[in-house]
C-alpha cells in the first residue's frame, strides 16, 4: 500500500519534471527583437515597429508581388539587364533587405514620397525617385512607370511599412549625415585604408568580384561597371555616412551585416579616395540643381 503510493507519487513527479523540461526548452527562444519607435506627424511616439520577418511574406495576399520586388531589389542587374547599365543592384547600397537603419532602409520610403529633392529642385514621387536610381546609381534606363517591376519593388517597400498608418513613420535615420565638411579629407590615407579594408572584396582597382555566372558579389566602386557621376554615392557627403556604418561588412559578430563603425575621419578619407575615381558620365547632369549652385562635393 505504502510502496504503491510512493511509486505513484514518484511516477507523477517524474513525468511532470520530464514534461516541464521539454516544455521549458520549447519556450527557450530568441528574446524579442528591440522595437523601434513609431511617431506621428507631430513627432509623438504612438507605437512600436519591428521589421516584418522573411517568413511572413509567404502569408501575405500579394506575396508574389512582394517576392518579385525583393528579387528585383536584390538582383537588379541580372533581372533587369535593359535597365541596369552596370553591375549594381538596389541592395548593393540598401543594406539588409532595406531593413537596416543608417543603411539606407526602405522602411519609411513609401510614406516619405512624394518629397522635395534639392537635386532636382522639385517634388518627386517614389516612381521618379526609383528611376533616379536606375539612371544614376545603376547607370541605366528608367523603368516604365506602370510596369510590373516598378509596382513589385514598391510592393516590397510597402510590405516593410504594412503596419504603419498614413502619416506615421518609424523614428529612424536613413543615413548618418554627419558634417563631412568639418573633416579634411586625406585621400592618401584613404588609399591605405582602401587597400587594407576594402580591396579584399572590391578589388585593388575597384573592380569588384564576380560569381560563376558573371554577376557581381561585390560591386565595382569605380570604372565602367560602377555608378555614374550623377549618383549620390559619387559624392563625399553621401558616401562617407554610408561607409561609416555599413563598411566593411562581414568583419564582426554583430548582426545583420557583421558591421563595425568606422571613425568619421576614416570614412571621409576612404570615401575621398574612391568617389573621385573615373566612372561613367551622367549626360543629364545639366538638369541637376537648376537655378541653384551645385554643392561643393558634386562631380560637376
Amino acid at each position, binding site marked *: 500500500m505504502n510502496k504503491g503510493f510512493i511509486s505513484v507519487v514518484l511516477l507523477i513527479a517524474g513525468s511532470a519534471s520530464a514534461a516541464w523540461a521539454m516544455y521549458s526548452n520549447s519556450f527557450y527562444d530568441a528574446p524579442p527583437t528591440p522595437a523601434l519607435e513609431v511617431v506621428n506627424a507631430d513627432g509623438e511616439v504612438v507605437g512600436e515597429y519591428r521589421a516584418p*520577418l522573411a517568413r511572413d511574406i*509567404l502569408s501575405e495576399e500579394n506575396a508574389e508581388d512582394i517576392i518579385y520586388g525583393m528579387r528585383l531589389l536584390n*538582383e537588379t542587374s541580372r533581372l533587369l539587364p535593359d535597365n541596369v547599365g552596370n553591375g549594381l543592384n538596389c541592395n548593393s547600397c540598401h543594406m539588409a533587405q532595406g531593413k537596416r537603419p543608417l543603411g539606407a532602409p526602405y522602411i519609411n520610403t513609401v510614406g516619405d514620397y512624394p518629397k522635395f529633392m534639392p537635386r532636382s529642385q522639385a517634388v518627386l514621387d517614389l516612381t521618379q525617385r526609383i528611376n533616379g536610381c536606375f539612371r544614376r546609381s545603376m547607370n541605366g534606363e528608367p523603368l516604365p512607370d506602370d510596369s510590373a517591376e516598378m509596382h513589385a519593388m514598391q510592393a516590397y517597400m510597402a510590405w516593410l511599412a504594412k503596419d504603419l498608418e498614413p502619416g506615421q513613420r518609424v523614428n529612424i535615420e536613413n543615413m548618418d549625415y554627419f558634417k563631412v565638411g568639418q573633416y579634411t579629407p586625406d585621400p592618401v590615407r584613404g588609399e591605405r585604408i582602401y587597400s587594407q579594408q576594402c580591396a579584399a572584396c572590391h578589388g585593388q582597382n575597384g573592380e569588384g*568580384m564576380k560569381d560563376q555566372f558573371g554577376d557581381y558579389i561585390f560591386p565595382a566602386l569605380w570604372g565602367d561597371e560602377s555608378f555614374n557621376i550623377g549618383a549620390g554615392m559619387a559624392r563625399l557627403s553621401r558616401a562617407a555616412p554610408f561607409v561609416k556604418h555599413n563598411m566593411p561588412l*562581414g*568583419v564582426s559578430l554583430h548582426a545583420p551585416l557583421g558591421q563595425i563603425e568606422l571613425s568619421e575621419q576614416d570614412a571621409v578619407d576612404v570615401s575621398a579616395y574612391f568617389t573621385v575615381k573615373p566612372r561613367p558620365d551622367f549626360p543629364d547632369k545639366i538638369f541637376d540643381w537648376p537655378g541653384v549652385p551645385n554643392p561643393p562635393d558634386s562631380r560637376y
Partner: protein
Amino acid sequence: MKAVKYLVAMGLIGFLLIFAFAKSVPYWFAPKMENPPQVDIHNPALIAKGEYYARVADCVACHTAPGGKPFAGGLGMQTPLGAIYSTNITPDPTTGIGNYSYADFERAVRRGVRPDHTALYPAMPFVSYMIAKDEEIEAMYAYFMSAVEPVQQANQASTIPWPASMRWPVSLWHLMYAQPREFQPNPNRTAQENHGAYLVEGLAHCGACHTPRGIGFQEKALYDDTSGNFLAGSVLEGWFAKSLRNEGVGLETWSNADIVEFLRTGRTDITAAFGSMAEVVEHSTQYFTAPDLEAMAAYLSSLAPKPGREATWQPQSDTTTAQLRNGNFDSPGAIIYAQECAACHRMDGMGAPRVFPALAGNSIVFAEDPSSMIQVTMAGGRMPHTEHDTMAFAMPGFYHLSNQDLADVLNFIRNGWGNHGSEITPRDIARMRKIVDNAPQHFVPPAQEADYE
C-alpha cells in the same frame, strides 16, 4: 542495527583506502625524473626550437584569456560540472612556473602532475604530449624559462562545486587513461605519414578535440587503432570538431593541398576555420613548416574510414541554385535564406572565395553532427588572422532569429545544393541557445592604471 554499523564502517574503511591509494598514485605512477638532463635555458638555438614546439603544441591558445597577457592563463573551459581555468605558465616565480625545475616541467607536460603532486585535469593534453621527444620538451623548457615574459597573475579557482571539485580522484583517472606510452611508427605507412602521425598524435594534440570521448571523458583512441575512433569527430562546448579521417563526412572531399592551405591560412576557396579551430590556426598551425603540414595532411589522408561509415561523400544533384535564381521561395527556409543569408553565401551557395565560405559541399554543413553549423549561425564566428590574407572575415550571429526560423533555414542549407544531412529541430536550436548563453566567462584581471602609458 549491527549490520548498518558494519556497513558504515566498511564503507569508511573502503573510502579511506581509495583516498590513500589515489593520493599515492602520482608518486609511483608518474614520479619526477631521477636524473634530469641539464638544460641550457640560455641557448638561443634551443630557445628558438622551443618556441616552435610550443607553437606546435599550441600552449598559448588555452593558456591565454581573450584580451589577457600571453601564457598568463585565465581562459575558461566548460566542463559538465563547471568551468575550469587555464593556469599561468609564464616564468613568474610566485604565480607562474618560474620555480619549476626541468624535471617539474617535464612531469607536468608529459605526465600531467604538478610539482606538489596534484594531478592536472585532462583538459591539459598531457596524454598527447606524452609522446613528445625529450629534446622537444627540453627546448620548450628553455623557451618558457628564458623567452616568455613573466606575468604576475594568480590562477583562478574553478567553479566546480565541492565535492566534485576535489582533485585527488583525478589521479585515478590518470591511472586508468594516461598510461605511459611512446610513439609507435606504423611500418605500413611512409616516413612522411609517420612523421605526420607523430605530430597529430603528439604535440599538435588534434585528438583532444577531434576524437570522441568515452564515459570517463577520456579520448576513445590516442592513435589510429582498429576501432577507427581516432579523430572520428567529437563535440566540445557545442562545437563539433569534425571527423579528420579519410571518409565521406571527414576529409574525403579535401585534397592534401586543401588541408595544408587550411592549416596554413585558415581558409580555402570554399571553407574557413571558425570557433576553436580559428584559434588553432591563428596561434599554431599557421607557423608550421611546410614539411610538417604536408606530413600531417599525408597522415590524415591515410586514415581509413571508421568501420560502418561511407568512404566517399555522394552529393545529390543541385536543384537549389536554379530554384533560388528563379525566385521559387516556396518554403520558410528558402525565403529566410534569401533575406538573411544570400547576400553573402549567394544563390549558388558558393559564397565568395576566401571571403565568405561556400555552403554547397562544405563538410561542416553536411557533418553528421550539426552543432558547429548551428552555433556559428547563432553566435557567429571569426576567421583567424594570418599573414597570408589582409582581412580576417567574420560571420555575424543570428541569435535574434527564432528557433523555428533557424531550424527552417539550416535544414534548407543542410539539404540544399546537393548537401544532405539529418534534420535539425527547433529543440536542437533551443539546446544550443542554452550552451551559447552559458559559455564560460574568461578571467582577465582588470587593467590597472599603471598599464596605460
